[in-house]
């Protein structure tokens, strides 16, 4: 097992800079998820760690040793690709044993290691089949098995569940988590699916346009996004993001007729900026009520998404719309008059120009 250290890494493809001064330390035994939109540089970062891609400048250290100039074969790292990495001409057994042949392990030990991994991943009954005879989920199980079999320093996975359907993805997610807990291997997992990231990660690394946006445990990234990109990217349904202005202690969404009252101490950071401001509130921080009461402003429901365990309700205030999360059947239909409030403790103010969270370090 290993610690991975990425220091000031830059990567250019021709003129196009894909990784911009990346710094990240992945601790021994940690499960780190790189999250971001497609094209953000996640795959490139992962491939750079594996040695499948060179870095333009900067250092990559594994257990304190610089490896950026070493070949992939000499880094003792395993990689699970999104697809197409099982050799069609080999059986499942041969596929899993393939990395062990590279280190010339003897046949008896090899068989033992393969059986053990196959057992763990519940693919023992497929060992003599060809990959083409497997389901998508089993193929990825085999790919993970092949990665784990030689007990590498670290396990890198690039959207390993990306091609699977939703149900299977959820199941495999749990298996990967279980496997990580059992094996404790240092893992870096790339995905664009924030739910996958939240459920798997010890720490989430959010990468956008080659720039690291935020690193932190899932709840921290969710509760304290450092900037607008993270705030909008993490969480489903997405955070309400609206341009606002301050009128005394009242936060007024541009286009709305009435503002929300915020306690003074919640506005300190917001007051400190002179520029345009954006308010971010997650749907669960938008509270609805059937009666007018203190701090609530009048609104009209426009759209309801019943999701079983809860509903997502769109409410109109003046010219703007907020999404709220309510218990099931809290409102019965569109066009209903309700009263809305924002929970100040769950509100985020962002500097519109820079996108930075005005709460600063919290």
């Amino acid at each position, binding site marked *: 097992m290993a610690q991975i250290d990425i220091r000031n890494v830059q990567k250019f493809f021709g003129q196009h800079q894909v990784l911009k001064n990346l710094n990240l330390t992945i601790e021994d035994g940690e499960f780190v998820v790189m999250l971001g939109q497609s094209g953000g540089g996640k795959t490139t970062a992962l491939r750079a760690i*594996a*040695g*499948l891609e060179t870095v333009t400048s900067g250092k990559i250290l594994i257990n304190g040793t610089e490896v950026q100039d070493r*070949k*992939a*074969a000499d*880094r*003792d*790292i*395993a*990689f699970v*690709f999104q*697809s*197409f*990495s099982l*050799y*069609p*001409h080999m059986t499942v057994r041969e596929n899993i044993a*393939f*990395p062990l042949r*590279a*280190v010339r392990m003897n046949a008896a030990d090899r068989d033992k290691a393969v059986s053990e991994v196959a057992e763990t991943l519940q693919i023992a009954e497929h060992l003599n089949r060809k990959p*083409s005879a497997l389901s998508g989920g089993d193929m990825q199980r085999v790919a993970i098995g*092949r990665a784990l079999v*030689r007990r590498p320093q670290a396990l890198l996975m690039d959207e390993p569940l990306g091609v699977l359907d939703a149900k299977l993805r959820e199941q495999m997610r749990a298996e990967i988590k279980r496997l990580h807990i059992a094996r404790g291997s240092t893992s870096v997992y790339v995905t664009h699916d924030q739910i996958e990231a939240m459920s798997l990660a010890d720490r989430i690394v959010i990468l956008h346009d080659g720039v690291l946006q935020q690193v932190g445990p899932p709840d921290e990234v969710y509760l304290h996004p450092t900037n607008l990109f993270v705030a909008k990217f993490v969480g489903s349904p997405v955070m309400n993001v609206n341009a606002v202005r301050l009128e005394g202690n009242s936060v007024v969404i541009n286009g709305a007729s009435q503002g929300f009252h915020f306690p003074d101490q919640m506005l300190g950071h917001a007051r400190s900026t002179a520029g345009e401001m954006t308010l971010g509130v997650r749907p669960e921080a938008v509270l609805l009520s059937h009666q007018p009461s203190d701090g609530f402003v009048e609104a009209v429901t426009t759209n309801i998404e019943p999701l079983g365990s809860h509903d997502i309700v769109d409410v109109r205030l003046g010219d703007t719309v907020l999404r709220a999360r309510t218990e099931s059947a809290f409102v019965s239909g569109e066009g209903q008059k309700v009263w809305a409030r924002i929970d100040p403790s769950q509100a985020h103010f962002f500097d519109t120009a820079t996108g930075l969270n005005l709460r600063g370090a919290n």
Partner: protein
Amino acid sequence: MAGVRTPREILTNRVAIVAVFVALAIMLTPIYWIASTSFKPRNLATTIPPTVVFEPTVSPFVKLFTKRSQLREQPTQEEYDAAPWWEQMVFDGGEKVVRNRRSGEVTMSGYGDRFTNSLIISIVSTVLAVSMGTLTAYGFSRFKVAGEDDWLFFILSTRMLPPVVVAIPMFLMYRVVGLNDTHLGLIILYTAFNLSFAVWIMKGFIDEIPREYEEAALVDGYTRMQAFFKVVLPEALTGMAATAVFCFITAWNEYAFALIMTNRNAQTAPPYIPSQVGSGLPDWTVIAAGTLLFLIPVAIFTFLLRNHLLRGMSFGAIRK
């Protein structure tokens, strides 16, 4: 899917089947002609109208492999009876088998040697063209090569000139370096012919093999070379088989250069077979027999690789 077919579909299907059989009949006629002629007695080979029903004989094949001369006088009954069955066939045709004066051994014709030459030259040049072509294609497919497109176009452009155009200069150069009438000479020539084709076809196949295959091998501790042999090559076999068939057929059938560059030592079968027409009255049955045997290796080769070919000819290597 075994859906119900409309009468219209059934009709279209029948028409298609009939069309296939008609086309097949037209294409197989020359082969039938060659095959039947090679089993005919000489006097039935050129009848008008053609003889369809006859008693087959292997005498054309006996004559194909032996050296013969015209009988000046009929053999005595004793001589005839003492001769083996195949020599009697030659006597029956008004010829006799040439034997060594002292040892009495039968003198063989040149056909066997020419046939062997054809095999050696075609196989070696095919192996060379396919292996060099595969390596080159792999390089172009996987690495950044400066001026890649220009190089590929240059490689293709070597095929734009009809090869015969350069036959005379080639002949002169070959004579200077002592390559004419050598196996090596023809092997180099045919390898060069086929190489550009092999590079282009193999590039198509290798481009289709996902890089992840090799990359998985690279992170698993293999070198680039090992990854190529253990992972890429098995996936490229289908393409290599298809390419090999094309290269083999080209080399096997090549006539013009073989005619110009070789005369005895390294001569292949294609220029040899028609050269037999020239000596005396042409014996079409012998030529037919030589041609029929000449067709067999390509048929065997294609048959052996048929499973690869079915997939390979559609120029898609990987079932995704």
